[in-house]
């Protein structure tokens, strides 16, 4: 029988790892991720999970170990946040090219000077060129479910790419929610044993990841780009399969809320989506035609899906919880790129930076800008919401 537990986002990730029968788990602590590896350590020491738990000397080494283990053909997991992800940066470029479907949970946290330990997306957004798939989740059930879906997508023969699951530091990682746990047999049926594309094995010796000259490396990059593209349909397909198996579905690359008849809409990601839903409900009650698009996957980016979902809009806003220090946030620049040729006005809305609280009024403020924009008024291309006083 399926069970229901009260779990933090971090614990939900750990339960997902257990249900997926991950075999090698290199790890290194960092706030706000640490509870994931602590929970996994408990599972292993209590005999509930049979896995090799390797305490690494750094996140760089943790990813290096994951790469080594995955290269032999076993299911592999690690988790990190912020500075840890930045330290992994060099190694993140290896699994996509070597085609190792490693799962990494990144608990989003701000990065660099003038920052603390609270949620911001600068850490994972900086890695979106590395070739990892990236999903941003809204609640703890989605954390668990996307660990299951993530392995299935990553290990699919049409994809074979690593998978980065991004969840909001503290807002999810340390917040307890109701999480339904599937039975082990159900997960085993949904996620078959991992069969690698290639593997290190003295019985079938091969050299993996040796030097590649310009005569061949361009084709490798082309293949990587094609694989990321083919992940789009697999992500949607797996979501449908997941719904059949477990009764929950997330919509694939994007999800929508109150988009029917909407004249203006906001694109959100992560837990901000939940707060924005409330703002939408309240504005709808006032008769305002507002809607919401939940961006789930940053990689592969839902170019076509966004164009389709926004076709009927008079104005589109993009919520960004990170900034490129070049006027706009990354979700906005990518969205505007996807919308090239469309005459819908698009605006960027920077908020929640450094973990600043995102409240319903903040999102209502964003919709105000969008309604002005829809009525043809001139609005700023990019607005920072919730700044202290006039900057």
């Amino acid at each position: 029988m399926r069970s229901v537990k009260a779990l933090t986002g971090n614990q939900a990730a750990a339960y997902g790892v257990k249900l997926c029968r991950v075999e090698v788990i290199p790890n290194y602590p960092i706030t706000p991720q640490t509870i994931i590896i602590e929970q996994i350590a408990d599972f292993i020491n209590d005999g509930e999970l049979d896995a090799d738990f390797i305490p690494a000397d750094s996140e760089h080494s943790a990813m290096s170990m994951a790469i080594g283990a995955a290269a032999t053909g076993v299911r592999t997991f690690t988790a990190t946040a912020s500075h840890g992800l930045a330290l992994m940066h060099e190694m993140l470029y290896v699994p996509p090219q070597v085609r190792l479907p490693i799962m990494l949970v990144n608990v989003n946290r701000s990065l660099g000077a003038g920052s603390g330990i609270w949620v911001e997306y600068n850490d994972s957004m900086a890695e979106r060129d590395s070739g990892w798939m990236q999903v941003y989740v809204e609640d703890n059930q989605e954390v668990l479910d996307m660990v299951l879906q993530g392995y299935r997508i990553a290990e699919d023969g049409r994809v074979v790419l690593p998978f980065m699951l991004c969840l909001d530091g503290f807002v999810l990682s340390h917040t307890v929610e109701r999480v339904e746990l599937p039975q082990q047999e159900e997960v085993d049926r949904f996620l078959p044993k991992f069969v690698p594309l290639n593997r290190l094995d003295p019985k079938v010796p091969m050299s993996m990841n040796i030097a590649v000259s310009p005569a061949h490396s361009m084709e490798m990059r082309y293949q990587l780009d094609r694989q990321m593209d083919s992940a789009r349909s697999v992500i949607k397909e797996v979501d449908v399969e997941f719904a059949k198996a477990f009764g929950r579905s997330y919509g694939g690359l994007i999800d929508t809320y109150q988009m029917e008849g909407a004249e203006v809409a906001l694109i959100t990601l992560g837990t901000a989506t939940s707060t924005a839903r409330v703002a939408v409900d309240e504005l709808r009650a006032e008769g305002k035609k507002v809607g919401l698009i939940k961006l789930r996957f940053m990689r592969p980016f839902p170019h076509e899906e966004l164009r389709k979902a926004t076709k009927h809009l008079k104005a589109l806003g993009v919520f960004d919880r990170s900034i490129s220090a070049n006027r706009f946030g990354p979700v906005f620049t990518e969205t505007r790129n996807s919308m090239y040729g469309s005459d819908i006005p698009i605006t960027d809305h920077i908020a929640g930076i450094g973990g600043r609280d995102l409240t319903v009024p903040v999102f209502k403020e964003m919709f105000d800008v969008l309604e002005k924009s829809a009525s043809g008024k001139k609005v700023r291309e990019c607005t920072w919401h919730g700044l202290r006083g006039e900057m």
Partner: protein
Amino acid sequence: MEKKMNIRTMPQEDHLLNGHGACAGCGVAVAVKNVMRILGENTTVYVPASCLLVSGGGMYPHSAFDVPFFYSAFENTGAVISGIKAGYRRQGKDVTVVGIAGDGGTFDIGLQALAGAAERNEDVIYICVDNEAYMNTGTQRSGSTPFGAWTTTTPVGKRVQGKRQFKKDLMSVVSSQDIAYAATLSIAHMNDFVQKVEKAKSKKGFRFLHIMTPCTSGWKSDPSMTYDLARMAVETGMWSLYEIEDGETRVTYRPNEMVPITEYLKLQGRFKHMSKEDIETLQGWICQKWNKRYCPAVPPLEKKEEELALNGDHCEGV
């Protein structure tokens, strides 16, 4: 007593194949070729950024290793081999996993991952092929470069000539953790060499082999002198041969008398600028190490004779 392996009885099947891209006279190629003969086909090799990656790992679609070979970065040898071993262990495959890194990848950028693997007592072999500088990038100074040596980042200038610091004592760093086996090797003492590699292969837990590998291009030496340089390094005390097992250090070859360092320096262009004063400084450093290594911990030579590799099969230099 079982007879120890020597260069006559060692396996002859190559796993670093002919046609690799190393320079004529490359000490690394000699070392790795012989290491691979002993480790055999049930081995997986990880090589970080280094000459060996380019010359042995090769350029797609060519590779000189006929066992599984892997690369991913420069500073992570200790970590990747830990991961590979874990992956094999999960599948019940008993494979010898070896990481072969240069001195830059070991003394400097790879020290943290190496120390981590040693502390966890990972069941792997870590080999440092030491040519005393970043040779793959064109001879830059490393923590292993000896005092006085020219490199492109310790140039011979009007004000400063060559490296001002002494070679890092890596073996002390590595053996500060009680690891299963640690040894220094020379390609000029091949019986000692093969016995140490075989011993490392036979043990479980973390094993560390440190091999002195002369570099013809970086040391500015004649390719035909590689063996002589390796031999002279030991005779002068620039390099010493010993092993550490169960916390005990055992010298495996003791020169009869110390050859002056000038005999070693004069064979190499990298030292040709050295002032008398600098040579004396280097000689003083060597004398200290010599005394520490050979006296008084080492018993009188005659009592240890049968254990000494030099007196084993009398085929030194064959």
